[in-house]
């Protein structure tokens, strides 16, 4: 094993939670509502249920060999060459994913908060901070995440609580009466943003102290994250209305703008924005970490972060060129991302699971006959 650090179940759960919220917390309401209209929150709910089922599958995969991470599993199950090829594909996907996430936070910051700063500068700053975390390793990242978790959790909770006075249930009525096809089809793009990306945790599971509680933590993290996603989508719909939610690129940010507690506490959306700043940060760090870990496995290097600096170059280049403008990227996320991610989030894991099960059974038979 290259990674020598160990993280606790609590840390792992928090990492999964942060990752699940990640970029989705600002973009998912818009994505699902675009197609599911006032049933957007139901689409997200169903996507989360499917997501949980996927997590069950990932857990079964990790059970094949508790000590092996994603890349080691691939090589062990498919043999050296096919395994390496699959690893390479997964790595390319994660590279693409990291760059995409970086682009998303860059777009958010440069259009909403830091309007006069060029997006490249913001992305470079963000990436450097992520690089620092990757260099320091998994343990430090997990501990840092633990420190920021209360803030992210309570800020989001506060957002949900503080907008309740303005909730208007009529905005989502009639529930599941119109646009049934659209609602069901909206599950696919909703599934794409956090749930099909969750497989990367198979690469981290072996580094959690108790494998059994780690699996529980995996489910708890995704469950808690999904709850927030559903709740925020629900709030966006009931407060802002379906049309407005779909029209906005970052509806959650607009939702934060509606908070007005006392006369004084207005425009505190930036306090909430900081919460998902943290979630996106940890999502990028985790992706970057797994990418770096995978590269080290691919080239059989000794440390997890050996290639992190060259990878940072790749990520920044990809984040700059992967979309000429914000509309292009949104279009990509809406129509192409989920099918693209499904190859890695569903197809490859299913393959790994089937072939792995056969392999394990064969091995058992051999040991039994001996």
């Amino acid at each position, binding site marked *: 094993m290259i990674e020598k650090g160990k993280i606790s179940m609590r840390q792992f759960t928090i990492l999964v939670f942060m990752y699940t919220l990640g970029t989705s917390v600002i973009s998912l309401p818009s994505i699902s509502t675009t*197609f*599911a209209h006032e049933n957007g929150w139901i689409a997200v709910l169903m996507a989360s249920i499917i997501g949980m089922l996927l997590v069950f599958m990932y857990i079964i995969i990790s059970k094949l060999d508790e000590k092996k991470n994603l890349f080691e599993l691939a090589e062990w199950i498919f043999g050296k060459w096919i395994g390496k090829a699959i690893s390479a594909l997964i790595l390319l996907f994660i590279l693409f994913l990291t760059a995409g996430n970086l682009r998303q936070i860059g777009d958010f910051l440069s259009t909403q908060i830091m309007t006069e700063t060029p997006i490249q500068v913001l992305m470079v700053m963000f990436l450097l901070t992520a690089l620092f975390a990757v260099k320091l390793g998994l343990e430090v990242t997990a501990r840092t995440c633990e420190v920021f978790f209360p803030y992210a959790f309570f800020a989001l909770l506060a957002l949900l609580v503080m907008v309740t006075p303005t909730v208007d249930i009529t905005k989502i009525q009639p529930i599941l009466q119109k646009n049934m096809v659209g609602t069901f*089809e909206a599950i696919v793009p909703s599934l794409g943003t956090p749930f099909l990306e969750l497989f990367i945790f198979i690469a981290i599971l072996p580094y959690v102290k108790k494998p059994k509680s780690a699996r529980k933590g995996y489910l708890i993290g995704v469950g808690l994250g999904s709850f927030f996603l559903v709740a925020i989508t629900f709030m966006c719909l009931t407060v802002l209305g379906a049309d407005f939610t*779909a029209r906005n690129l970052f509806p959650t940010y607009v939702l934060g703008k509606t908070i007005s507690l006392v006369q004084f506490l207005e425009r505190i959306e930036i306090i909430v924005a900081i919460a998902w700043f943290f979630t996106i940060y940890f999502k990028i760090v985790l992706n970057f970490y797994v990418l770096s870990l995978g590269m080290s496995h691919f080239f059989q290097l000794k440390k997890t972060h050996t290639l992190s600096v*060259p*990878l940072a170059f*790749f990520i920044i*280049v990809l984040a700059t060129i992967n979309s*000429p403008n914000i509309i292009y990227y949104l279009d990509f996320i809406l129509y192409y991302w989920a099918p693209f991610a499904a190859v890695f989030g569903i197809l490859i894991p299913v393959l790994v699971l089937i072939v792995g099960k056969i392999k394990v059974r064969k091995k058992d038979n051999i040991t039994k006959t001996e």
Partner: protein
Amino acid sequence: MSKVIKFILFTVIALVIFRKDYASIKKQKDKKEKRVYISTFFLGYILVSLLVLEVNLPNPSDWIKQAYQPILEPYINSLKSHKLLE
């Protein structure tokens, strides 16, 4: 002109980063480790240089779009029909 200045600046920064970052790898005796690092670093350097020099790089998202377009045609059309906007 400003492109060139940016490029030179980036080259200097890259050199500094390389010196700092390579120091930890240099100690190891494994030659493969060094080779892999240097080649990936060089590749990354070239890519960023092209970006800085404002060369039009192909967009990988386009490749994915093109690859998936034929398979996903009906799905995308169906999705588009349910779109709230427009």
